[in-house]
């Protein structure tokens, strides 16, 4: 009974938070609601037993997106804060209502759908070089998806580089933040490294570690402890491109000299996966940090 109560509570809370985010009168309140929504979503993932996802959602979904929203909010203070009068589009209101019955009709039979894949994953897990199934799928069975996904992250960075950004006026670091930062930043780095290492055996992995490192870098930048390095300087450029470059070079290497495109040799699978994970998390950390805190001077092509 309580099981059912918790689920329905979480579900309804999610829907309410989402509605509140969209229709809150002031922009600031809707951003706060949105961050609440993100955290609640992380809790629901954990509730449903997907630890990898809970970590990723908390770090990337709620954390960094929330910081970005706050950043965007801070830059352009709400001049006239009248209630957002949604466009009186009749069809925009009716469309979701029309689609709802179709969706419900489609969802009902889904709980009994066929599922051949989990059995195959367990069967092949031994040859994948890692023991945690999600990491095995991400970095071995469907490694092509992950490579393309790293490209997506790179595109986001390249996109931000092309924009003509107005230079941000740096705030003097807030003393309490300085104190916090001395403890939190190293802890975040440590935690990220642990997540990265544990990814092979248990929930964790490149993205979660990368996100944590990125948050650590953002904290250091907020306190002005990290110098702004221009993109022209290789010390910033190479780590940012590390993930994609290592993955692509490995793919081409396995294609030319190995058994085929992205075929990890059985013996070295674990080592190669770890190498890729390390490179990917470094790349993601630098990229996400640049996305969040990237100064105009740093990013200018």
């Amino acid at each position, binding site marked *: 009974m309580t099981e059912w109560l918790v689920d329905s509570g979480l579900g309804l809370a999610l829907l309410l938070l989402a509605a509140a985010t969209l229709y809150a009168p002031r922009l600031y309140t809707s951003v706060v609601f949105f961050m609440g929504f993100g955290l609640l979503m992380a809790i629901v993932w954990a509730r449903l037993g997907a630890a990898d996802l809970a970590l990723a959602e908390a770090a990337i979904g709620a954390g960094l997106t929330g910081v970005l929203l706050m950043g965007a909010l801070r830059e352009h203070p709400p001049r006239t804060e009248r209630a957002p009068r949604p466009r009186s589009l009749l069809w925009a209101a009716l469309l979701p209502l029309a689609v709802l019955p179709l969706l419900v009709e489609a969802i009902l039979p*889904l709980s009994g*759908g066929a599922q051949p894949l989990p059995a195959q994953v367990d069967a*092949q897990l031994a040859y994948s070089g890692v023991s945690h199934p999600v990491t095995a799928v991400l970095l071995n069975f469907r490694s*092509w*998806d992950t490579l393309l*996904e790293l490209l997506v992250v790179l595109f986001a960075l*390249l996109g931000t580089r092309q924009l*003509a950004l107005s230079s941000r006026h740096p705030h003097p670091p807030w003393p309490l933040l300085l104190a916090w930062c001395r403890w939190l930043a190293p802890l975040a780095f440590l935690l990220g490294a642990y997540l990265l290492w544990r990814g092979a055996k248990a929930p964790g992995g490149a993205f979660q570690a990368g996100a944590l490192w990125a948050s650590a870098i953002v904290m250091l930048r907020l306190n002005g402890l990290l110098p702004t390095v221009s993109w022209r300087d290789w010390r910033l450029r190479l780590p940012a491109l590390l993930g994609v470059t290592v993955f692509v070079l490995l793919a081409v290497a396995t294609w030319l000299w190995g058994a085929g495109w992205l*075929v990890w040799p059985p013996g070295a699978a674990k080592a190669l996966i770890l190498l890729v994970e390390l490179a990917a998390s470094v790349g993601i950390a630098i990229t996400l940090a640049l996305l969040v805190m990237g100064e105009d001077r740093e990013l200018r092509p």
Partner: protein
Amino acid sequence: MNTALLSLSAPLLAALWLLLTHRRQAPVVIVASLISLVAAVFSLYQVIDAGEQSLALGGWESPLGIRLRLMPVSAMLLTFTALIHSLVGLYAWRSRHSQTRHTDYWPLSCLLHAALAALWLSHDIFNWYVTLELLGLVAVVMVCLAGPKAYGAALRYLLLSLAASLCYLLGVALLYGVYGVLDVSLLAEAARADPSTRTALMLMTVGLMLKAALWPLHLWLPAAHSSAPTAVSALLSALVVKGPLFILWLLWSRVAPEELGQAAGPWLALAGVGALLVGGWSALRAPLIKLMVAYSTVAQLGYALLALGLMLHWRELSLDAALWLFVLAHGLAKVSMFLAAGEMQSTLGSRRLDSLKGATQTMPVAMFAFAVAGGSLIGLPPSGGFLAKWLLLLPLLQNPAHWPWALGVMLGTLISAAYVFRVVAISFDRARPTSPDFNPDRFAQWLSLLPALLVWGMALISEQLILWLTGATL
């Protein structure tokens, strides 16, 4: 299959090299495109001799791993993409107006090429989601190259592109929920016409139509394509819009069961005719040069949608050949038209159409390229557009019950003739005195003429091309 992968990895490595060394060298990109073109042609010949080939990535057979499949159509599209990239790359290197100096245009165009190649080769519906996302993002970023005035259009394009990807992803989730596999061939065997599959396919179709700017979900395209730099809008209109169309075609002709296809056919065909008429009408009334060319893309995609819809409705496989011949002809003609329009717009200094007054005297070669490309869009014989329209018309005219569709095609032709010749008529007017710093770049104008001559040159190989297309896509 290896040559196809080479055709994919060449631009990818070139992009990474440019990013790592932080240099803006056009020759690197053009050489990469040419290597990719040669590799694509080899893969095309392999497919012609040995038929379809597939490759299990990472050594894991599907359904576990991702399978890349080289079909005749995808080999042709690989060659087409590499050819367009080489042509546009040459133009961008030469032209002074393509904002390639102080931006990341060169690595981005290589990454766009790699993303397209990944899409043509992929055979896995989730992998298509990631490649679609890649395509959408790189297109948005390249629209932003035009500077702050393009950010508004780019932002709307990005939001609609994300929403479309999520529609598509929800469809993928439903399909995976029912059948448990992501590979297209396995899905094709397992697919049944139950409500879940119907809704999933509908969602995926809405997402793909939004990304391919097929009428009535085309509202983001004119603003985005017309505000982008010249070379970028050529790439967007010729290639990026065709990616989702390829997936839509594969979904409906391979995965969807027959009766769903038959039911959806007329709706797609009606949307096609709608695109022809509404898109054509908007192009006729567009006041700006590139806006008119962008609306013409929306209109011309109507032919592809019409061919797809009728092919599904009547199981008439010769319409496949019409669809893909149209994609080739439209791509080449649109590249030439956008390059010519962009060159004239930046040299004459104004975005308005009436600034083209007397363009035949001031910029004769660019206007000639525009008119020749327009001729292929209208479908004047013996251009590529005519071949596509000929193949589209034959099944329509065969039995009298299908004549209303033929009427739609005829009206589409008339409207496209109207908006092309509206510009040509303006250009034959008396030329206004040109501004003192008016020095047209003749070589860039000749480069913009090249794709148009290619689309008319398709007449030389038209018979083998049509016989191969009608034979190959079965």
